[in-house]
Structure formats: C-alpha cells, structure tokens
C-alpha cells in the first residue's frame, strides 16, 4: 500500500523537514471556510499547528472530520500542557488528528486561562476522546464541559491537586503511609 497523499505536501516523517512559510492546505481549507475558527497557524518541523478559539473547537473538529479532502476521522491523541503558574494563558490542550484515508496529520491547540480552565468536550465527535479528556482532567485540572463521565482516571478519587501542573511538587505533598 502506497501512501496516497494527494491533499498534502507535508513530509511529516522526515527528520530534517523544516519547511516554514509554506501554508498548509489543511489550515488553508479551514481558514477558507471559517476564518473566525483559526486564530493562528504555526508551521514548524514539518508539522502544522492550528490554534483554535475555545468556543469553536467542537465545530472545527466536526468540520475537519467530515470535510471532503480532509477527513480527519481519527483522533490520535489529546494532551494538556501547563506553561507554568506565572504564565497567562496558562494551559494548552493539544489535539492530534489523523486521517485513516488521507494519512495526513494536524495539531489543533486551545489555550486556556487558569481561572477559567473550561473547554468543550469533543467526545461527541470522536468517542476515543473520552479517556484522553479524563486523563487531562486528572493531571491538569482542565474541565471538559459536556463530558459524559468526567472522573479521575489514573490517580485515586480522593487525590488532592493535579499532578502534572508545574506547581505540583515532584514527590507530592506528603510521604505515603497506609494509615
């Protein structure tokens, strides 16, 4: 099977590809249809990053999933990132999309403020987002609105704090004891 990859000219896998400046056809398609859905497009290291305003993320995902020629029907990964307690906006949520028919990839990014770390859930678009969002909630404390079952997934239910935040100490707050 040859990668039939007519829609994109991105050699994503090459280690040395750093074609900055060439606008990605994926971002261009999104911008053409809905210019207000993209606030920034970053091309670096052969990967396309589209920064999407929070309120449009579900619409943008649904559009990318169904638009002919794009067909991002596979959510590879969803992960959070904490820039640090002094940064504002503090949190990032990254969506790595993949197409099982076109074989191209794109990253969507949502940035969030600490005091309002809410983002709409994309479980309605891809069901696989369920556990990814639970993990991001568990480790970063980002709330995914309209998520069907937003509970902690890795840490115990009575855990205090969110472990992957930069201000959470590496060894936790207290040593473990069974009592």
């Amino acid at each position, binding site marked *: 099977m040859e990668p039939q990859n007519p829609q994109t000219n991105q050699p994503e896998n090459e280690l040395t590809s750093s074609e900055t400046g060439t606008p990605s056809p994926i971002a261009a398609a999104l911008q053409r249809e809905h210019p207000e859905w993209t606030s920034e497009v970053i091309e670096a290291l052969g990967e396309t990053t589209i920064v999407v305003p929070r309120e449009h993320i579900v619409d943008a995902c649904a559009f990318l999933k169904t638009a002919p020629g794009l067909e991002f029907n596979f959510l590879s990964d969803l992960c959070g990132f904490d820039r640090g307690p002094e940064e504002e906006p503090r949190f990032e949520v990254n969506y790595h999309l993949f197409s099982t028919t076109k074989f191209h990839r794109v990253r969507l990014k949502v940035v969030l403020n600490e005091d309002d770390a809410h983002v709409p859930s994309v479980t309605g678009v891809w069901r696989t987002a369920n556990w990814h969002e639970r993990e991001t909630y568990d480790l970063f404390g980002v709330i995914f609105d309209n998520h069907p079952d937003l509970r902690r997934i890795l*840490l*115990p239910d009575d855990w205090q704090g969110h*472990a992957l935040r930069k201000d*959470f*100490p*590496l*060894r*936790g707050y207290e*040593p*473990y004891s*069974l009592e």
Partner: protein
Amino acid sequence: MGLENVLAESLPEILTTQLDSLINWARKSSLWPATFGLACCAIEMMNATSGRNDLARFGSEVFRASPRQADVMIVSGRVSRKMAPVLRRIYDQMPEPKWVISMGACATSGGVFDNYAIVQAWTKLFQSMCTFPAAPRDRKC
C-alpha cells in the same frame, strides 16, 4: 567463631545460612507463590517458570491466583499509592507462615521512580521479607 556468629550477635534480625541449605529447604518446602505481577519484573517472573530457568526445580512452579493457597508473595514491580492498600490486603489474606519477596529495585526502594505516584519503601510495611534490589537485567544476577 565464624562470620555468622558475629552477624548473629550484632544483627539479630538477620539470618545467615549456606546457600545450599537454603535451596534444599526451599525445595523441601515447595513454596507456592501468589501471582502478584505488577510491572516489568512480572514478565521475568513468568519467564522464571519457562523452560530456560525452570523454577520447577525448586518445587514452586505452581503460581496460585488465590492468596489463600499461596506461601510466598512475589511483589514484582513498582507499587503505586493506589496499589499499596490492595497489596496489604492480599498479604493479610495469605495463611501463616508466609513470606514476601520484593523483586527488583522499583519494588524495593522505588528505583528510578522517585516521585509522587510510587510508594518508596513499602517494604517497611511487612515483617518477613526478602529483597533482591536489581532491575531485571540478566538471569545471572
């Protein structure tokens, strides 16, 4: 006046013996281990029963899924904070006399994982135990 006498006087909680007699004792008693596979070491614990290493030589190839039927619990892998209560509970369910083997550095002391999620020295929670602080590098260690 051998080394074992000196050790027995100064460190009464440490038992010294000859390896041969320990092996013979183990072979005679035919210890049945409880499966407590946690992480990477669990695969090597499984490997111990396979043809190459042949744990059956010591009469202990019968891994019991129920703690009620087991004599020794091999804790193979890192113990997380979520797992520690389960570990203790399974230990409590084992009949006397019982032993615990902590397999590998992660189980014994946390190993490279010195962080919030891993119990660093759960070995303090038990009375009778035996530790092998090494990651599963080689069957020769």
